[in-house]
């Protein structure tokens, strides 16, 4: 063990003794690693805002919607669509929504005509909706079992609508839904994945049946959270599970798909720039091999005397290999710092979100070390093979 510690000391002293040479050969791995980190990091960061949003929203939400089949005005799903969806093993949570047609909401009596022309959507929703959409209440509460059973005229409105009608947090207010006064019991947070919900009024299925003759309580839309990673398979099987061969048509889509596609890094560009970085690393390695080979010749007297003092071939070879390792570690570390600095500067200049894949600095460092070690093999062998008798000029 002490042998390796001493070898490290000797190698480090060798590097420290020729500072400018060491700094110059460190440039190769430094520039290579910095280029790779900046290239991968900046191409990732260019779509950083979208990636961040996608991470926040998750990709496991599926929206299943009854689609227009021939001869049906308002397409509906079977009344037991929720238990049918839940029967799919990879489905975690389900919330049902039914859009009521022909129900006009009038927040202000004076503006009735406006709201008749551009109606506010009224949705019958079940108690699971906020949990499935993964949104919270801005204020108040969501519709509960009591509202459903007692036919209490309770409504929740979307955040967009609350802002439109200047409803203050905590203010108690009622809203005219199809001529009935509904108490607004809560404001639902903005739903990024379904912006239509921001301006909607939500009431219970019970109230919808009671007040607006929506008797069969058939949903036209299901929000489904699938087990992570299964969203593709789940969205493929959901329509079949819901319709069970019936006449209804159901289409399932993943709302984050578009976002995911938009946030995809331009991999071609990334490969090209990272490839140039890799090339810089390889050129750097060739530089290390060259300079170290020359150094072996310059230091032949040192090698000869070390051999005369009892250092074996393998010890001398290892000394030079460790010098290459030192160049790799120092160059790699410096490359990581320079690469991150370039990323920081680039993202700030372009106003992007800094996205760094956690493996990237490590990969850079390991790459620099490997490449430097490979470059050090030839000089190390050369040093080990040097005959002391040839270098010491006896007699």
């Amino acid at each position, binding site marked *: 063990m002490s*042998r390796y510690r001493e070898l490290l000391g000797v190698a480090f002293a060798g590097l420290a003794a020729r500072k400018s040479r060491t700094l110059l050969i460190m440039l190769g791995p430094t520039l290579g690693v910095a280029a790779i980190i900046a290239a991968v990091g900046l191409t990732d960061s260019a779509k950083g805002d979208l990636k961040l949003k996608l991470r926040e929203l998750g990709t496991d939400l599926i929206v299943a919607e009854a689609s227009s089949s021939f001869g049906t005005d308002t397409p509906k799903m079977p009344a037991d669509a929720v238990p049918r969806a839940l029967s799919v093993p990879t489905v975690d949570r389900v919330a049902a929504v039914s859009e009521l047609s022909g129900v006009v909401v009038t927040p202000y009596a004076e503006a009735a005509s406006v709201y008749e022309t551009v109606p506010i959507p009224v949705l019958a929703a079940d108690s699971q909706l906020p949990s499935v959409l993964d949104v919270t209440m801005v204020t108040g509460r969501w519709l509960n079992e009591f509202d459903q059973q007692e036919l209490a005229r309770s409504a929740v409105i979307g955040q967009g609508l609350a802002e439109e009608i200047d409803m203050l947090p905590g203010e108690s207010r009622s809203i005219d839904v199809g001529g009935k006064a509904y108490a607004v019991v809560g404001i639902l947070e903005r739903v990024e994945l379904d912006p239509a919900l921001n301006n909607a009024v939500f009431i219970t299925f019970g109230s919808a049946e009671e007040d607006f003759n929506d008797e069969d309580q058939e949903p036209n839309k299901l929000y489904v959270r699938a087990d992570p990673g299964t969203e593709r398979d789940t969205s493929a099987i959901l329509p079949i599970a819901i319709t069970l061969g019936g006449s209804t048509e159901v289409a399932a889509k993943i709302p984050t798909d578009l976002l995911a596609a938009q946030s995809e890094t331009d991999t071609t560009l990334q490969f090209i720039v990272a490839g140039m970085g890799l090339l810089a690393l390889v050129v750097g390695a060739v530089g290390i091999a060259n300079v170290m080979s020359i150094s072996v010749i310059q230091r032949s*007297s040192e090698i*000869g*005397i*070390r051999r005369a003092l*009892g250092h074996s*071939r393998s010890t001398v070879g290892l000394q030079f290999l460790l010098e290459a390792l030192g160049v790799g570690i120092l160059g790699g570390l410096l490359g990581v710092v320079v690469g991150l600095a370039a990323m920081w500067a680039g993202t700030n200049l372009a106003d992007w979100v800094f996205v760094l894949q956690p493996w990237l600095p490590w990969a850079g460092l390991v790459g620099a070390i490997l490449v430097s070690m490979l470059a050090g093999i030839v000089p190390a062998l050369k040093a080990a093979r040097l005959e*002391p008798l040839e270098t010491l000029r*006896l*007699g």
Partner: protein
Amino acid sequence: MSPVQGQPLLELDRVSRAYGEEVVVYALREVSLTIRAGDFMAIIGPSGSGKSTMLGLLGVLDLPSDGVIRIDGVDVGSLDDAGRSKMRGESIGFVFQQFHLIPHLSAQGNVETALLYRNLSRKERTDRARAALDRVGLGARAGHRPVQMSGGEQQRVAIARAIVTDPLLILADEPTGALDTTNAANVMEIFESLRSPERAIVMVTHDLAVADHAERRVSMLDGQIVADEIRLPA
């Protein structure tokens, strides 16, 4: 302290060293020599007489084409590179004409280099190197690098490096060849002071003034030993 009575430290038994494959040239031909503990020996001879080849073989820096070299009873030819390196490190101390100090290391660092990879603690290395430098009168300059020292001082650092491992054999190749008269005398004084019944000192030189310091003089010519004389002190 008669040199003839010491234990054999290094034996050359009909050793030859030939170079070339198609045209074979013998640099050394069937040489036998025994170096004993306590020997203070000079190997002399003109250029091309085989002195350097002899030095390479005595120092285990080279292997004979034929014959056997034994150091402390061990056949050098039976050892691999690691074994020969170990033997060099433990049994032989070198002093070269051109000093061969490592330029980026201090005097102390140069001397410590001979103690590396021997499972010694850092303190032990430092202490022993310092003691060796004190012995050659350079303790105060331990932190100086070769470039900051005169030729004589550099050669004294090289001697400290050769004796720090307490070797059986000190091999000196023209130790005063690069020095002026004063420094040369100084270095020879140090060699004289290093004599001990357990150790042999062998100087390879063409300088008869240097050879005069030695008790035993081995003369070489054309790859062979032509004389092996014991000279009693005047």
